């Protein structure tokens, strides 16, 4: 495991994108985008569909090579580093993964140890311990001998997270970890992530769809639109009705979440069609005071 800490000499974070242009084939998705991932943060990237948030995450995880610019891990271009060495520092939970037919939970989680293994080091005592710990941390230890195909969606997502954890990386990227899960399992997975972030001081970066979940769990929020960063910082500082309208095109009020004290985005109610045209000015005036958040 890499013990090297932040690049303190320059004050730069361990993971950052430096003026990257990203795209597929000839379709450019982001141009000259620079993003810093603060060390030890739980960074959440939000934005409307096709804003480039997953593309950015893929580039940070070196799954997508920038057409221009560089992604830097500990000050070095990520693509030039040995693949297994990167995999010991930076983990990723992809949006979709396929569990091989008939594989057990323990066997799948054990695959997370691949970057630590070699021809003569196939299954060390450490591997065994880390796999057991990872399953315990995600609450799938009692499922160890079950087949992954038999599990529910929520359980399966925990198993994949356990596999990523077994990599023992100080940085972990999660691409839409809550998609396809019901609300209970969404909260479950996000609580798990928050715990991982708090306990080990791990740096987490997640792409999320739900703005309110992002506001509640993130310590650092990056809001993107059309391949650009519109705002970044602690959710409480950057989430305003004006930002939400600018990024998502949704009129809303931002109030305080009664549970967590974080910003809560409440979309404006739909107005009857007939009234809509005439009342626009009045309703805009009515929502404006609420838009500046109560202190």
């Amino acid at each position, binding site marked *: 495991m890499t013990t090297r800490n932040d690049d303190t000499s320059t004050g730069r974070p361990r993971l950052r994108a430096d003026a990257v242009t990203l795209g*597929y*084939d000839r379709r450019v998705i982001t141009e000259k985008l620079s993003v810093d991932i603060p060390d030890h943060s739980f960074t959440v990237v939000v934005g409307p569909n096709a804003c480039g948030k997953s593309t950015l995450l*893929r580039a940070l*995880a*070196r*799954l997508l090579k920038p057409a221009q610019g560089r992604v830097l891990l500990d000050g070095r271009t990520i693509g030039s580093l040995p*693949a*297994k*060495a*990167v*995999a*010991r520092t930076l*983990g*990723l*939970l*992809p*949006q*979709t*993964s*396929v*569990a*091989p*037919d*008939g*594989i*057990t939970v*323990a*066997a799948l989680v054990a*695959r*997370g140890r*691949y*970057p630590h*293994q070699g021809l*003569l*080091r*196939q*299954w*060390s*005592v*450490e*591997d*065994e311990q880390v796999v057991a710990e990872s399953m315990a941390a995600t609450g799938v230890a009692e499922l160890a*001998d079950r087949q992954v195909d038999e599990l529910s969606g929520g359980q399966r997502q925990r198993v994949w997270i356990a596999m*990523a954890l077994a*990599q023992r990386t100080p940085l972990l990227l999660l691409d839409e970890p809550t998609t396809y899960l019901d609300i209970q399992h969404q909260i479950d997975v996000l609580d798990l992530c928050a715990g991982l972030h708090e306990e080990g001081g791990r740096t987490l970066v997640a792409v999320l769809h739900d703005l309110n979940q992002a506001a509640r769990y993130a310590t650092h929020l990056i809001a993107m639109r059309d391949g650009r960063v519109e705002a970044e910082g602690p959710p409480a500082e950057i989430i305003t009705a004006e930002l939400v309208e600018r990024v998502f095109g949704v009129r809303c009020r931002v109030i305080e979440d009664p549970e967590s004290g974080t910003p809560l985005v409440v979309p404006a109610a739909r107005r009857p069609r007939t009234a809509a045209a005439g009342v626009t000015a009045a309703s805009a005036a009515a929502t404006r005071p609420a838009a500046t958040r109560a202190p």
Partner: protein
Amino acid sequence: MSRARTAGTAVLRTARGGLSLRLDRRAAAAAAGLLALALTAAVVLVGTGDYAIAPADVLRTLTGHGTPGQDFVVRQLRLPRVVVALLVGAALGMAGAAFQSVARNPLGSPDVIGFGQGSAAGALTVIVLLHGSSYEVAAGAVAGGLLTGLAVYALAWRRGVQGYRLVLVGIGASAVLAAANSYLLVKANFVDAARAVVWITGSLDGRDWDEVWPLLAACAVLMPVLLGQGPALRLTEMGDDAAAALGVRVERVRLTTVLAAVLLTAAATAAAGPIAFIALTAPQLARRLTRSPGVSLLPSALMGATLLVLADLTAQHAFGPAQVPVGVATGLLGGAYLLWLLTTERRSGRI
């Protein structure tokens, strides 16, 4: 050294933990069983023929204690044929496992996605148009298989290769090549056509040591290459992103695997013709036997060797006094298996 036990695996470690080896008990037992079965069947096969030799005498002859007559029959006539059968079976089994893993689909095996037809096209071109020697036919088969393999890989490429596209492109290529092969056969004169048909069916008749050595060399180089890719290849079955996140250079692993598997298939085809269905069936049967997730290379190779030797025994016995080429037996058995596979996979929604 210490031994640890986790469910179904044996682990061997040095005291300081610098060295640790892991073995799946069931897979190891299955591999040992298959090896024993393949070798037993091989000994029986050596003793089979117009001049029958008891297995005990075969063993005695192999260790250098046979009569001169037995010695000649075993060493010069029958042993090379059986060694070719073992090697071709192992090569096809392992290459099939590699392709099925790359394609993430049991149908992604060389004989389904056109390499058999490609090799046949190469061999037929040499037989029908150039009237070449058996060496030139073998070279033509290798060239045809390689070209087809690379063409299918290149056509299926779009920001990486995906299983379905590989299978579909391969089936398309197979159809085109089958048409070309039919044309060549129709165009051929009677003698060439008969020779071509025997070659296409796949046969082990009259194989001697000249066929063994190049095949052995190909296996000795390519099998370790494939086995070296094995652990990374397994991870790619979970999806490109998941494998890359674990530190696998996905495209490099895939290209190395495909190249090695194409060469292995071509070498096997050059030695015995495009023997059908071993590459398709061996990995899946081995998987069911070892109960391992995904296909595994070494058990598939052993299963392939076992299947081909057993098929050759069947081909020599089951059809009365007239011996038939081994490709007929594998075709019959494998075709039935393919039907079964298509029905069950369809039921489980994967095809």
